[in-house]
């Protein structure tokens, strides 16, 4: 009998193996317990080849009261039955369900309900999806709800590495059935993830090769006003570059994987560690007669000044294989970025892009349209700057732009916490400040409709200029749906809960 079976449930991405469950497997095994991982999300969603069925089934998991067909309902019912039967057959002492986001709540709730009737082991749930409105919210609505209704034995808040061991050993600890989780500060002490159970799955990798996720840090060194990350990760913690390089090398030696995607909020948060990583990788290539860029690795990047990251740093980063960076640029108006506390100037961005171009590193812009202080002139400035940067899209230095769904006010972010200071309020009385439904007393012309129209204008310009705009169709459809719900007065926090 194994100690723990970890399960991924819909709906999460199919583009590479989920990082969390394999990391927990490594940690649990390091402590002498046995553990298997089953990616039930992938098994279900990958099996659906018809695009309409795929949309119906993913909508079932992610959108309240979504339309359902008999055919798709049968597919889902069969999947639940087979999954429960599998668990009974393996018969682990504990089943751990990864609630990666609130979009995993529907599957988790139903699976727990079915399991409870027939399974005698302990049921654990954990993940950021225990909260419905962002990782930072203090409303642990989902975990508490399932615990109170006795559908689960434990929920785990915060990081799972220590908490899971505590459950397996003593059934109690920080962050177990309570919100008093303690952040792990020594990430180097954790075991490497063990991908043995999931490497066989044919994930929908965005490149032609197998790509594995790596987590090198938690939290962020910046405090952007719209971001809720600090409410969850109080401190910025990071692994040494040497430790990260060793993990990458171990995956190469074990699985022959050479492509890695860093799941961090930023891969250049600690510059000492960043430099150490590039140097360790280059040394490994040289010692083993491997060419430059033998590994390929990327993740989220913050813009740095020339003083912080010199041209020599970019040369090393490119040699070590860094590529495919997602940058939270948010706005191309310097004033708006100052308001956001983004911490970089236009000059810094120009420098970064030119270094990327010189060294063949490509990047992806993450944008936010409609920040509360955004005036028409700032919007035009962003459009002009995108026109100025067009050359980077033409030669592939900027390989894509994600415009998002206009600014959402997330609980835990400074904008939410200090909403009075920022002059933000819900559009009608007696409603919580939440998501897209806000106005600014200081900038009353920036209505939701204005923000949406700016978002549409920007996408049109970018497409004309030759930028690849990612995920626009989906975002615009969702934006329209949210707008309609706001109009109908059904866009409230309580309405998106699945309970």
């Amino acid at each position: 009998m194994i100690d723990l079976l970890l399960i991924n449930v819909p709906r999460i991405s199919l583009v590479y193996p989920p990082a969390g469950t394999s990391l927990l497997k490594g940690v649990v095994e390091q402590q002498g317990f046995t553990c298997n991982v089953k990616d039930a999300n992938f098994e279900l969603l990958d099996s659906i080849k018809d695009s309409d069925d795929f949309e119906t089934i993913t909508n079932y998991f992610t959108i309240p009261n979504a339309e359902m067909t008999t055919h798709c309902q049968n597919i889902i019912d069969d999947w639940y039955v087979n999954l429960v039967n599998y668990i009974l057959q393996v018969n682990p002492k504990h089943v751990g369900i990864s609630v990666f986001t609130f979009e995993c709540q529907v599957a988790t709730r139903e699976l727990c309900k079915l399991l409870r009737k027939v399974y005698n082991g302990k049921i654990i749930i954990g993940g950021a999806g225990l909260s419905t409105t962002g990782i930072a919210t203090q409303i642990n609505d989902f975990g508490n709800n399932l615990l109170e209704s006795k559908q689960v034995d434990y929920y785990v808040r915060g990081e799972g590495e220590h908490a899971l061991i505590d459950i397996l050993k003593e059934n109690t600890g920080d962050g177990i059935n309570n919100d008093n989780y303690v952040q792990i500060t020594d990430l180097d002490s954790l075991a490497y993830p063990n991908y043995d159970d999931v490497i066989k799955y044919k994930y929908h990798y965005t490149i032609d090769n197998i790509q594995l996720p790596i987590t090198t840090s938690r939290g962020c060194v910046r405090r952007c006003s719209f971001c809720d990350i600090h409410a969850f990760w109080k401190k910025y913690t990071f692994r040494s570059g040497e430790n990260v390089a060793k993990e990458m090398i171990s995956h190469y030696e074990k699985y022959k994987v050479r492509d890695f995607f860093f799941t961090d909020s930023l891969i250049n948060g600690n510059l000492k560690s960043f430099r150490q990583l590039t140097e360790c990788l280059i040394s490994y290539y040289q010692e083993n007669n491997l060419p430059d860029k033998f590994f390929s690795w990327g993740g989220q990047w913050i813009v740095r000044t020339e003083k912080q990251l010199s041209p020599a740093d970019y040369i090393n980063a490119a040699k070590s294989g860094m590529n495919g960076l997602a940058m939270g640029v948010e706005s191309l108006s310097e004033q708006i970025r100052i308001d956001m506390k983004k911490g970089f100037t236009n000059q810094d961005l120009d420098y970064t892009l030119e270094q990327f171009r010189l060294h063949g590193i490509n990047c992806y812009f993450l944008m936010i349209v409609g920040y509360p202080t955004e005036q028409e002139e700032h919007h035009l400035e962003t459009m002009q700057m995108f026109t100025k940067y067009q050359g980077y899209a033409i030669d592939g230095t900027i390989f894509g732009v994600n415009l998002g769904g206009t600014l959402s006010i997330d609980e835990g972010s400074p904008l939410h916490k200090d909403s009075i200071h920022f002059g933000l309020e819900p559009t009608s009385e007696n409603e919580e400040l939440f998501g897209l439904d806000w106005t600014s007393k200081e900038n009353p012309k920036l209505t939701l409709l204005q923000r949406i129209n700016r978002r549409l204008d920007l996408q049109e310009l970018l497409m004309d200029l030759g930028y690849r705009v990612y995920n626009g169709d989906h975002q615009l459809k969702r934006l329209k749906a949210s707008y309609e719900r706001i109009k109908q007065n059904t866009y409230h926090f309580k309405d998106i809960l699945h309970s």
Partner: protein
Amino acid sequence: MSVLNKIPITLKIYYTHSSHTNGWPLCRVLWDNKQVANFKADGQEIEFTVLPKSQGTSTLIVEHYGKNVYTEHDKFIEIIGMRINNIALKNILWESTQYPITAPWDESWQEEGNLYLGHNGHIVWKFKNPILLDIQKRLKVRTDMQEGQESTKKVLNEIKEYFANEKDR
């Protein structure tokens, strides 16, 4: 595409040249058959700005002229690089045709991808408009999107149409 033909583009041509013997090589550059530069080739680069057309084809011509083929055997210029809006044209540089001026009694000839102008003559590059999108395509920069990640004009226009009829509450 309306925005694309309103933004000037900057071209920079990098070259090498023969040394000063009986004067520097003489060059001129034509964009869509209009002269945009006329210079002594005594430096390393020449830069100019043009307004692109929204459709059709645009032509860039670099011409070497004024060489006395009897007395100035060594005079030449060679194009070694080109950038449009700071985008290196890489492979596109070689996608060109050279037309040397030959004596009437010699057979005329042309050559693809020869950037060395030892004769009087010119090199022609052709671009489809909008030029920057043509360059993007010819540089083989990936523009396709993974399934489910697309942004299409169809959906954009549908959503624009919907919101065009909306008014603030």
